[in-house]
């Protein structure tokens, strides 16, 4: 439900030209190894955190638990040639640290500024990830970020075409970034 809404928004914002899209789909399928290359996601995360937060973060490959009752999730939908979403998820403490690095302010709770910052981080991650594949950069739109906060919720996605799910660590805390592709139009 949530991802469908975000995706529709992304479709509406994409600069779609149907004839061009048909020609590009075959090109994008041929580039599938690039689209689903996990290194693109790692590079995108490193780039966004280094440039916007001045932070180095490392991919963590072990099992991960957010470990906090409250978590923050931001979703940016992809629309156009590729439909899907970029999902950022962290515990409240990681979200607060990220927002503090972005703004130079101190936060004690996940307030509107923290949510805004996490939405913008997810937006930049989605943009950086799609820019790694030229066909995607030109023919895939992004939705406005949606941010969800709360406790004990799960996000369910039905059988995606592919999914990248990576966890990263910085400053003794962690966050997850997931790229879900549920279809090439």
């Amino acid at each position, binding site marked *: 439900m949530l991802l469908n809404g975000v995706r529709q928004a992304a479709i509406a914002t994409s600069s779609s030209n149907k004839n061009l899209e048909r020609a590009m789909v075959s090109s994008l399928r041929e580039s599938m190894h690039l689209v689903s290359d996990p290194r693109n996601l790692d590079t995108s995360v490193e780039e966004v955190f280094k*440039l*916007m937060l001045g932070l180095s973060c490392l991919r963590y490959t072990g099992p991960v638990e957010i470990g906090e009752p409250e978590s923050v999730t931001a979703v940016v939908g992809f629309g156009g040639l590729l439909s899907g979403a970029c999902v950022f998820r962290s515990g409240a403490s990681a979200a607060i640290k990220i927002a503090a690095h972005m*703004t130079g302010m101190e936060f004690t709770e996940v307030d509107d500024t923290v949510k805004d910052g996490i939405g913008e981080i997810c937006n930049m991650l989605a*943009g950086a990830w799609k820019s790694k594949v030229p066909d995607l950069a030109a023919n895939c739109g992004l*939705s*406005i970020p949606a941010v969800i906060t709360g406790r004990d919720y799960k996000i369910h996605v039905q059988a995606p075409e592919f999914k990248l799910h990576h966890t990263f660590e910085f400053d003794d805390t962690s966050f997850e970034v997931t790229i879900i592709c549920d279809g090439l139009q």
Partner: protein
Amino acid sequence: MSEVRTLIVDDSSVMRKIVERSLRQAGLEALVVFEAGSGIEGLDVLKTQQVDLILSDINMPAMDGLEFLRQLRAQNLAPGVPVVMITTESSEEHVKQAIQAGAQGYIRKPFTVEQVRERVLPLLKAA
């Protein structure tokens, strides 16, 4: 550099602060900043304030950055004032659309202070 009156249009208040901080770090210390959360708000600001520089996001609710630029030109608001788009959209097509709509510069998010310095300061000197 003397006072630079700058309009920053972005639906994210955090991003507006980051852009403002980057401009100051790039050397524009005497900034007077006007903020707008959408293209519509940006046009409203320009009806009452004179500015020397406009920086705008593209993906925004209500009125996106490209439509904001088109309306800016159509309503002859801020004539001759340089406009720089700051956005996650980075394809040549998006850059072309922004230039056609009247932007003089384009910065992709995430960005460095050095990129802001290189792409914004020359526009102010030329204006």
